[in-house]
């Protein structure tokens, strides 16, 4: 579970050093999962960000400074995430931290940031909807773009209750991330004086080939109306597969962190192998508008830059990974993260100063990223967006849910 990925770090550092020497740059530290059970999330988020940063650097950077990402692998495990963060801050002297992936990792990194509070080390836009980086005592050291899991789960609960599905069960990852989603569901249900009717967990790091029958059976015995699934794509896909294999067609809802594109990929591939139907009655929450909505300027720009720069995974990673969909929510989020980051860097002074970061972020007010939803920060609010979008799968594609009545009970 805590297999350290630090060994690859010196290699990465060597590869990055020459660029550092050439030109004035703004070093940005990244620690994410590039090799573990959720590596597609880390890689795609990185690629999306790189597409935008490459274009900015091509256009001369920020005030003539290149934005350089230093990416280290933590395998979605807390201990390497802490080691990587210390490495990035103290050795690499990064200007800020960016694009971290996962609740268990970020949750454990936050106290470190409080330790560095005199140095003003901030974490920007971690790919997680958990509360610790939104609430005190660590909320001051992180800035979020995406809506929280509480918002995502609350949206799901609200909609399920509306269509009469009040017996909600939770399938979640046995860690801080799972607990975060679980708590979101619990709080949302409490509004209606409801409780979670059943819960089942899986161990972080489980893969698609693992059997999740025990969890399916356990939840099925409670006869829930709907299941909210807080996990990563591989075990969540396995859970859906095992549930459907048992002939259980209860609606299963996943949150944004699952990486809907990858979840769908696994299920569609397995459908081809087994001839079964794994993709009906699936619901996904997203915290961004659809990356396929070409009416949005940001979508057009994202697609354009992805096509133009064809960003790759960090050096040494992603070689063996199957290419995901060309465009997806994760890389779209990475793209928007980078776009907002660049705007903040531009406002952080010339040369950019860490001390100016908070002021720069707070100055973002009704900022248009090109997704028709304004982004705003303030001293009280370290989360730029609150929107939650609901999708379902039709013909192997994610489509926005037009009407929840189809799940009426």
């Amino acid at each position, binding site marked *: 579970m805590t297999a350290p990925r630090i060994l690859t770090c010196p290699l990465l550092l060597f590869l990055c050093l020459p660029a550092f020497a050439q030109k004035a740059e703004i070093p940005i530290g990244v620690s994410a999962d590039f090799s573990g059970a959720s590596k597609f999330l880390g890689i795609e988020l990185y690629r999306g960000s790189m597409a935008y940063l490459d274009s900015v650097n091509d256009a001369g950077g920020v005030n003539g400074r290149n934005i350089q990402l230093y990416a280290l692998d933590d395998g979605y495990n807390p201990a390497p995430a802490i080691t990587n963060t210390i490495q990035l801050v103290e050795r690499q002297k990064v200007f800020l931290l960016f694009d971290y992936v996962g609740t*268990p990792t970020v949750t454990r990194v936050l106290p470190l940031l409080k330790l560095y509070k005199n140095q003003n080390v901030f974490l920007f836009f971690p790919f997680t909807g958990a509360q*610790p980086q939104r609430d005190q005592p660590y909320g001051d050291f992180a800035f979020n773009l995406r809506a929280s899991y509480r918002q995502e789960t609350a949206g799901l609960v609200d909609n399920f209750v509306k269509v009469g599905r009040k017996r909600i069960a939770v399938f979640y990852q046995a*860690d*801080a*991330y799972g607990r975060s989603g679980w*708590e979101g569901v619990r709080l949302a249900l409490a509004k209606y004086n409801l409780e979670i009717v059943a*819960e089942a*967990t899986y161990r972080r790091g489980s893969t698609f080939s693992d059997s999740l029958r025990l969890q399916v059976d356990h939840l099925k015995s409670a006869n829930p109306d709907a299941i909210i699934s807080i996990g990563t794509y591989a075990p969540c896909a396995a859970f859906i597969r095992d549930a459907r294999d048992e002939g259980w067609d209860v609606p299963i809802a996943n949150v944004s962190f699952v990486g809907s594109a990858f979840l769908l990929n696994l299920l569609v591939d397995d459908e081809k192998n087994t001839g079964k139907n794994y993709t009906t009655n699936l619901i996904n929450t997203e915290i961004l508008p659809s990356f396929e909505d070409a009416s949005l300027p940001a979508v057009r720009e994202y697609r354009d830059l992805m096509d133009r720069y064809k960003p790759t995974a960090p050096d040494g990673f992603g070689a063996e990974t199957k290419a995901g969909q060309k465009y997806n929510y994760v890389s779209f989020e990475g793209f928007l993260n980078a776009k907002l980051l660049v705007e903040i860097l531009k406002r952080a002074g010339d040369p950019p100063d860490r001390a100016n970061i908070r002021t720069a972020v707070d100055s973002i007010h009704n900022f248009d990223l090109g997704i028709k939803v304004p982004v705003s920060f303030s001293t009280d609010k370290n989360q730029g967006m609150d929107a939650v979008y609901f999708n379902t799968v039709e013909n192997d594609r994610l489509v926005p849910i037009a009407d929840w009545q189809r799940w009426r009970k």
Partner: protein
Amino acid sequence: MRMSKIFRKVMVAQIILFAVIAAATSVISGWDLHRYLTAQFTSKGTAIVRNIADSGVDILVNRDLSTLQSEVDQFAETDGVAYVYVADANGSIISHTFVPAIPQEILSNQSHISGGTIIPGISIAYYALPGLGRVQDISSPILQGKAGSVHVGMRLQVINGIVWHAIGEQQTVLWGIFTITSLLALAFVNRISQPLNLLSDHAQALASQDFSKDMPVHSDITELARKTDELGGLAKSFLLMERTLKDYVGQLQYSAAELEKYSQTLELKVDERTQQLRERNLDLENTLRQLKEAQNQIVMQEKMASLGSLTAGIAHEIKNPLNFVNNFASLSVELADELRQEIDKQKERVAPESIDYMQGIVSDLEQNVRKINQHGNRADNIVKGMLLLSRGKPGEMHLTDLNTLVDEYVNLAYHGLRAQDTSFNITIVRNYDPAVGKISLVPQDISRVLLNLINNACYSAHEKKLESGEGFAPTLTVSSRNLGEKVEVRVRDNGKGIPQSVCEKIFNPFFTTKPAGKGTGLGLSISFDIVVGQHNGELRVESQEGEFAEFIVVLPRTGIRG
């Protein structure tokens, strides 16, 4: 190595005793360790529970559950911890580490705890959970139960595992030490039991009174007797006893051996004497035979000698008157011839009747005289032969080609016989071995022998021819053969053969089977004398009556005179 039975029993008892001790030690130390570890686990669990309970206050009051979960997850990784969970004041579990779900055992006990029996400090319960085994549940209330409670499950199976491992190690070490000490003890015991075994062996050897071979233990016992301890004394006594016994037994054995030796040598001597006698006997027999042979020879020689001198004397005495007879007979023939001529001259004067009468008388006279002359000559021949037989003076030895000599006399004999009798004919088969070559001999004597033998053979074959008629083809076979140091000449005829009775005396002088007047009976006798006497050879005859006769002459190459 042999171990004394007493020591073996002691060893077995020791092993059993040690096994009991080892088992007891393991039970005690295992139990102690188990108790100690359980206490350690409890205190470890207690520490975790207190820790989470203390920090949990802050988290539960101020923070979200994912932070609490992070805290809980960290402690759940501790060794021996089966699970951690936190329940809120209502008893519902708000953070836990169970996968795939909270066990029913925990859920059903939950209501009991939340039922109001909240006591300050730590409470302990036990669960048997699927997949985790027996678990010790250590719990502590948070803020005296106002904020909920923390539970930590410690896996007791881990303790068992550690205890068994420790017992295993302990047993390994114990038995290892026991094995080593046992081996040392075994070696020591062997050193003690060896002299005892020796003494026992020695006593047994003495009892069996087997002194014939060296007792294998003797030297070891002697070694042992040098020691000053009790065993040494015992060994000394044994040695003394052995010596005394050995003396007695030795004397007895010596006497018995002597007796045995006497009886054995006696037999041997008798055997030896008998053998000697037997050999002497054989010698005597040989000597007797040789003597007999010598005697025969002497008799033969004596016979020959006396005969020789007798015949020589007679011959000499007869020769003179015989000469007169012969001379006057031949003279008388001439006289008779003159008388006839005279009568012829006086034919006219005498009456024819008288003339015829006178002439008749003269021719009768002439005929008589001729007969006298003829028989006188024959008598002369006999006398000459007799003289030859007795003659002591040998001829000269010459190196002669035997084959040539043989062939020459074969022809001579044949033509001689043909001249006498025109009806005579015989087939001659010659079979000479060229390897015979030249040998040393007296040619005139040997030729005489050959002529004799060939004449005899031809005569015999011719006789048979005369008896059996045309169907019979008389054959003479003359062959020579090289025998290395000797040569052999065989003269064979297919004539009437010689009866066995004749064979025995065939070489005696004057013995002949020819009708009176035809043979002198001296031919073979002379031949024998020439071959055996003069040339130191052999002359023998082989025959089957009515079938064949074969005379064999064997001559040494180096003509050593007999």
